[in-house]
């Protein structure tokens, strides 16, 4: 592999890993916020237990979103300095806004929410998880603004060999953004819904003691997946119009064509399955009672993740060889003077560490699911202000 292939592979690996975790974050955040709201409004302990259990899964998943996101952010400067040189005056603005207006606040409020269970007034604590959700969506918005600019460099003119920002409004009304943003956000909801559904099916299948907890959770999961899948598919098809205008050859290649096919197959069949089978079976909790269905629900859980990665491959590989469509080629955006040796080392280090931590993270999530709502660390009591006394030595 040459330098370009190695740098592309490095971005593809970290980007795919990032998206796997972020897509679930986007789906679970509003669900946890809604559960927390019901807990605060009703005072029902069941809702508190749901908030803590699904919140813990959300938080463990969040960790890998951070780790992979850090590498993504710095990788632009490491391997693709040609991009910031040529287009940084335009492309850098939404990324800067993402870090300052979205992630900075998201991370701060998440810290308040995770550690503030016994410290903050209930409503202030609740406000934190809603602010986390809001800023997570703001983050998705700014990242998609930046990505859509690469797909269709609206709002910019070339001056002296570099792009200059002409019209910020046009960056936000990019035809490549209008349908792709709700598509991604709905895909997040679908993913979150399927994870809640699959984990609930596991407990119902095992006939654990938490029947009411997981019958309710199963309902939440299926309804969320229904809403998510409906809009994912709708906004997915809606994109063919603008894409046909701005990138007419996007899906002609082998890889983007195949990825698109896989995504549409999962999306269309999955959406029909949710709408015509799973949703009607919520009637009288048939879905929770028909135990033979539960292994199928568990097997369906990974499907939105596969579709999300396939969709991302279709969108990104489909614009090759351009990094900024029609303006800058990927090969011309590489940092000058990079060697295959150096890139191989950094690729092995990032992919090795992030891959390992991703596996650990999924094992930990599976374990939280298996142990159930009885033993949840999130919201557990604090350590006392004074340290435990050292036991006195006796004869």
């Amino acid at each position, binding site marked *: 592999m040459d330098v370009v292939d190695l740098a592309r592979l490095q971005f593809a690996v970290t980007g795919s890993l990032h998206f796997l975790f972020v897509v679930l974050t986007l789906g679970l955040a509003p669900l946890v916020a809604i559960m927390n709201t019901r807990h605060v409004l009703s005072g029902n302990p069941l809702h508190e237990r749901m908030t803590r259990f699904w919140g813990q899964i959300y938080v463990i998943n969040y*960790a890998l979103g951070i*780790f992979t996101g*850090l*590498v993504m*952010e*710095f990788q*632009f*400067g*490491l*391997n*693709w*300095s*040609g*991009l*910031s*040189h040529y287009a*940084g*005056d335009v492309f*850098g*603005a939404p*990324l*800067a*806004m993402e*870090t*300052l*207006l979205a*992630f*900075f*606040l998201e*991370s*701060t*409020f*998440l*810290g*308040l929410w*995770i*550690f*503030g269970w016994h*410290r*903050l007034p209930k409503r202030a604590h609740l406000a934190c998880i809603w602010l986390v959700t809001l800023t997570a969506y703001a983050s998705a918005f700014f990242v998609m603004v930046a990505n859509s600019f690469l797909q269709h460099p609206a709002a910019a003119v070339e001056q002296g060999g570099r792009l*200059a*920002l002409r019209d910020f409004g046009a960056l936000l009304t990019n035809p490549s953004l209008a349908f792709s943003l709700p598509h991604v956000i709905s895909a997040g909801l679908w993913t979150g819904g399927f994870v809640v559904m699959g984990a609930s099916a596991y407990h119902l299948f095992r006939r654990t003691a938490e029947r009411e907890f997981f019958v309710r959770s199963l309902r939440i999961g299926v309804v969320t997946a229904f809403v998510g899948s409906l809009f994912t598919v709708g906004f997915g098809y809606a994109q063919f119009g603008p894409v046909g205008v701005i990138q007419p050859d996007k899906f002609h290649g082998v890889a983007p064509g195949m990825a698109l096919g896989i995504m549409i197959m999962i999306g269309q069949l999955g959406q029909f399955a949710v709408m015509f089978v799973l949703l009607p079976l919520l009637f009288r909790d048939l879905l929770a009672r028909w135990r033979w269905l539960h292994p199928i629900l568990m097997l369906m859980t990974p499907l939105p993740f596969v579709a999300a990665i396939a969709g991302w491959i279709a969108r990104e590989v489909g614009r090759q060889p351009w990094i900024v469509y029609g303006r800058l080629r990927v090969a011309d955006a590489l*940092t000058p003077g990079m060697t295959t040796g*150096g890139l191989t080392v*950094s690729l092995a*280090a*990032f992919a090795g*560490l992030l891959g390992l931590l991703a596996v*650990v993270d999924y094992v*930990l999530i599976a*374990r939280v699911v298996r142990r159930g709502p009885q033993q949840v*660390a*999130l919201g*557990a009591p*604090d*350590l*006392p*202000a004074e*340290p*435990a006394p050292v036991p006195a030595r006796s004869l």
Partner: protein
Amino acid sequence: MEILWFGVLAVLLTGYFALEGFDIGLGMLLPVLGRTPAARDRLVGTMAPFVLANEVWLVALAGVLFGAFPLLEGKVISGLYPLVVALLLSWILRDAGLWFRRRLGGAAWRSLWDWALCLGSAGLAITWGTALTAVARGLPPGALLDPPGIAGGIVVAAVFACHGWTFAAWRLPGEPAVGGRRRTGRALLGSGCLAAAPAVVAVAALASPILDHAAPAATLSVLSVMVLPCVPIMVGAQLWIWRTFGRGAVPTFF
């Protein structure tokens, strides 16, 4: 306008050193100060609520570098290539230690991630010192790990360790982990200034090249209009963290 965004960049770098400095320092000292698993849990618990709010200062710094100083971003980050890779790996290792250490019950598991936390923190401090030294010297080619760079790494590790210890003695006054000693908020402010000093020196040395690489006025105006109105919210959220977690019981999640 360039001056304003240079100010933002300087505040973010200085703030990162003053705030994340104690997390990194305490992480490095964890095996020394926390002789028992219970003591380590208490030490990690004191810094845990601050870490998420502190490390984002660097994420924001990288964002501002990209948005307001794009020509500099590519030059600096790619010019420090091996150091930036080492810094990211250390950062991830440190964070993984924090997020994972209490997720399983066993003593070996927690000890493994405590070491990740300690080594990751040490790696962060040393790569920061070396990177700042290289940047302040104008990125001389092939001189990332020469004696001045290593000396810079040791200096930053030392001031971070001092800041981390002061934080522990302020947050857990009189406890065995800090030898029964106590530090006031004023002492913590002092050690924060000490931790931030390397960043201040580097920013001051580089003021004119940074200003020369600012994005055009059109980009900076858009950034200002979008970002500046939210600054009070960002500051408020940070203050809320200090108000909530500066005293009292020690949270347990990390």
